[in-house]
């Protein structure tokens, strides 16, 4: 219904600005309806302004800034309606260490309400995991999965 959508839109918009400034350590972001007269038909546009920077078109953001802004959007949705589980495949690839750290802190904060499964090549990401599975292919085309024991072994994968 129109009322339900508009309520969700306003909530998520507020969340988006908050999560964005959490992940960027400042700055401002918002959602806008492309067609205010027809909210039920309207698309949603994102504007985002990293801290201290002037507002520009989204296409001018850096690779890492785009990833982080997109993650802020998804986490803004979760804040409104927590996902039961969330599967992320290499979403950290473009993030520098500092941005990655803030993203991981946010994920840890909400892991009680949302089960996260994250595929990664990044050691910092592995460090926040409660469980780790590893895939190998000793025989081509056939996946073998093993679990990585955290604790003693966890130190080993962090060399």
């Amino acid at each position, binding site marked *: 219904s129109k009322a*339900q*959508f508009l309520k*969700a*839109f306003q909530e*998520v918009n507020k969340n988006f600005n908050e999560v964005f400034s959490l992940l960027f350590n400042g700055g401002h972001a918002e*959602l806008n309806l492309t067609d205010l007269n027809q909210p039920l038909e*309207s*698309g*949603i546009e*994102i504007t985002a302004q990293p801290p201290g920077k002037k507002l520009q078109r*989204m*296409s001018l953001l850096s690779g890492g800034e*785009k990833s982080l*802004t*997109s*993650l802020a*959007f*998804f986490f803004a*949705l*979760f804040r*409104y*309606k927590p*996902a*039961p*589980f*969330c*599967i992320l*495949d*290499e*979403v950290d*690839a473009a993030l520098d260490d500092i941005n990655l750290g803030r993203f991981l802190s946010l994920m*840890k904060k909400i*892991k009680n309400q*949302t*089960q*996260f*499964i*994250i*595929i*990664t*090549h990044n050691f910092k990401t*592995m460090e926040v*995991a*409660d*469980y*780790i*599975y*590893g*895939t*190998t*292919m000793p*025989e*081509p*085309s*056939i*996946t*073998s*999965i093993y679990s*990585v024991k955290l604790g003693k072994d966890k130190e080993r*994968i962090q060399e």
Partner: protein
Amino acid sequence: MFIKKLEIHGFKSFQKRTKIVFHPGITAIIGPNGTGKSNIVDSILWVLGGKRLKSLRGERSDDIIFNGNTNHPPMSMADVTLSLGHEDEELNINHRVFRSGESEYRLNSKTVRLKDIQDTLWKKSVGEKDYFIIEQGSIGLFLSSKPIEKRVLLEEAA
């Protein structure tokens, strides 16, 4: 609701019957390129039968069923079961496809239509929700997606 267990057999690179137990909290999946990490994600998308099937790398049964290597022949069936935990309840969702193209869905061992699974999940707030599965490569392209696509995600959460 959370994922308790994923059983994969004959789906893509899972020639061996594979059972992966999941727990609440954060699970990382790691490993070298091409060893099957994203295939795990594909198996979850596939068993939930979502609209996303078209974006699954390859949706033909040829692409879905293990197609062999030098020592093992292609298999004739792909079978994935996802066990979801919801308070005291357990929901077991199964999808099976054969080389012929025949496809079956089961909910707690009872044969159903895909629609029945989607309705059940929808009641429990899961359904075809795209907003909590982010596939490899898509996070960098999200901002340049059409405004209508962003709206669809918000609607799913609303």
